[in-house]
């Protein structure tokens, strides 16, 4: 397969125009000593037909959620994706455009970003959302950096119930900026230990990070967490599930200063972990400290409304080492997917998806807890993910489920040694009652 356009004759004519004998003359500046001097050791190029066969054989060596029923959660959620999302996102006009630096010929991308910002601000109840981040994890890390610069403090307090991968990315970013990260555990029932939190937060704390629902699926004592943060002048950073926000009070209502999260549930395929979408919303006062892109409405010379990137002086291409972040791309195409998803569902459809998830998850949890030897790990309210203690080791449960064509029950012990053997399940609106029956039956078999 070659995507090159020139014929041998084209190349000859171009070289003649340049008065150059051979294309190798154009590389004269590359010193002989650093040249490769041999062909790359890669297989010969493939025809399109052969390429498709090769890639299909790699794809067929996997068994995904198209063939297995997915009850896995933990940072990636198997939700239903309307056909309209793929239709729009696949359009080459969106797919193959660059970052909208020339606003006049990028109105499609810019308006899509502005509409995404609007929808995310609505959903989170915050004043302003930006154009998107790489993923939910880096959004948490960037939120901590924002809090540090806004408060001039350098101590970050994160609840341990925040997604472990987000906390890992937070630690990586924090090390660069020299921030200290302190973690606070739960009460044993999955909810924040507010006394321990109050003891950990001090006047040097820039941010308190809470997830709602948290990694165990538990609906957090989020308003109380925000109160502890504010008592010491720290910002409250909330990591939220965008679909859960259809039924839960949004962070803007319960006192968060920054709301971030993983946007993958909004119409983005599981895709073995990426590309995903981070969202990032703040109170008005923090707008100038936002990392990443921001689109704004304005008028053009004809008096028609249009959209342009704005507050660009925050960014690396202007402020260089003093920028709010080094981030340069957003995830425009995935923000577009999320917008089409939210427009397709509308407020009612999103609520239906959330209610159906809530109901199916609670039915599944109730029935699993009634199985001999099983119990729920946390006696606390949850949305659509919950942890279960099984009478047998996690590997045995997972293997039995897989034998029945079911994926589920990741072991919390991988990230929380004290919770070894606790199995995390997610039940979304994409599941059916029959699939829940199969899960319950397989768990019963595994526990026997």
């Amino acid at each position, binding site marked *: 397969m070659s995507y090159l356009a020139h014929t041998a004759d084209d190349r000859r004519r171009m070289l003649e125009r340049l008065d150059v004998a051979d294309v190798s003359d154009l590389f004269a500046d590359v010193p002989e000593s650093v040249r490769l001097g041999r062909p790359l050791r890669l297989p010969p190029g493939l025809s399109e037909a052969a390429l498709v066969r090769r890639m299909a054989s790699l794809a067929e060596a996997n068994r995904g959620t198209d063939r297995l029923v997915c009850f896995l959660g933990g940072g990636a959620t198997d939700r239903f994706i309307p056909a309209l999302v793929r239709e729009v996102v696949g359009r080459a006009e969106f797919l193959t455009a660059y970052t909208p630096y020339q606003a006049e010929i990028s109105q499609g991308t810019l308006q899509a970003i502005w509409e995404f910002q609007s929808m995310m601000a609505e959903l989170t109840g915050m004043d302003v959302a930006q154009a998107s981040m790489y993923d939910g994890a880096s959004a948490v890390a960037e939120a901590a950096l924002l809090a540090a610069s806004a408060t001039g403090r350098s101590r970050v307090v994160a609840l341990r119930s925040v997604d472990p991968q987000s906390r890992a990315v937070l630690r990586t970013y924090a090390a660069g900026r020299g921030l200290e990260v302190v973690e606070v555990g739960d009460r044993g029932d999955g909810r924040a230990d507010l006394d321990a939190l109050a003891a950990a937060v001090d006047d040097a704390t820039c941010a308190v990070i809470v997830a709602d629902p948290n990694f165990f699926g538990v609906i957090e004592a989020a308003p109380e967490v925000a109160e502890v943060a504010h008592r010491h002048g720290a910002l409250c950073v909330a990591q939220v599930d965008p679909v859960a926000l259809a039924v839960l009070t949004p962070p803007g209502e319960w006192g968060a200063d920054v709301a971030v999260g993983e946007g993958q549930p909004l119409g983005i395929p599981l895709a073995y972990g990426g590309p995903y979408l981070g969202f990032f919303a703040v109170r008005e006062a923090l707008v*100038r400290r936002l990392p990443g892109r921001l689109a704004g409405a304005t008028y053009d010379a004809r008096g028609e409304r249009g959209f342009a990137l704005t507050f*660009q*002086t925050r960014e690396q291409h*202007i*402020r260089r080492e*003093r920028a709010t972040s080094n981030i340069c791309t957003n995830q425009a195409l995935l923000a577009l997917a999320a917008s089409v998803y939210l427009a397709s569902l509308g407020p009612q459809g999103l609520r239906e998806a959330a209610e159906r998830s809530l109901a199916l998850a609670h039915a599944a949890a109730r029935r699993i807890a009634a199985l001999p030897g099983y119990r729920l790990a946390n006696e606390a309210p949850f949305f659509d993910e919950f942890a279960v203690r099984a009478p047998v080791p996690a590997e045995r449960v997972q293997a039995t489920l897989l034998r029945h064509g079911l994926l589920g029950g990741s072991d919390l012990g991988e990230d929380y040694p004290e919770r070894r053997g606790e199995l995390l399940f997610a039940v979304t609106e994409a599941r059916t009652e029959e699939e829940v029956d199969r899960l319950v039956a397989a768990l019963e078999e595994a526990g026997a």
Partner: protein
Amino acid sequence: MHPTDRRYTKEHEWIRPEGEEAVVGITDYAQNQLGDVVFVELPAVGRELRRGEAFGVVESVKSVADLYAPVGGTVVAVNEALASAPEAVNRSPYEEGWMIRIRPSAPGELEELMDGAAYERHVQAEAGA
């Protein structure tokens, strides 16, 4: 060409004495170089500035410039109007677009700055470079 009632810095700030105090802003040449000013960040009232210290930032759509104190002193007032109407810096850099009012700690420093004619030579040299 440049008002003669004030002094100038190489970084294109002006300072105009008013009794015990002095008013500071940026020159017409500076606002022209920046283009449409969209944001001005000013210090808190009461802050002590050393001569040459960065006290704020002026931003246009695609550039950022630091503001430097022409003389040392205490900030006694800032131009609050610039928060909602930063375009005043473009429209009226010498009057409406003033930025801070300070009480100089060493009034002698003022005399070391350029007058209008010297500043004009400085601008010519910079533009020709």
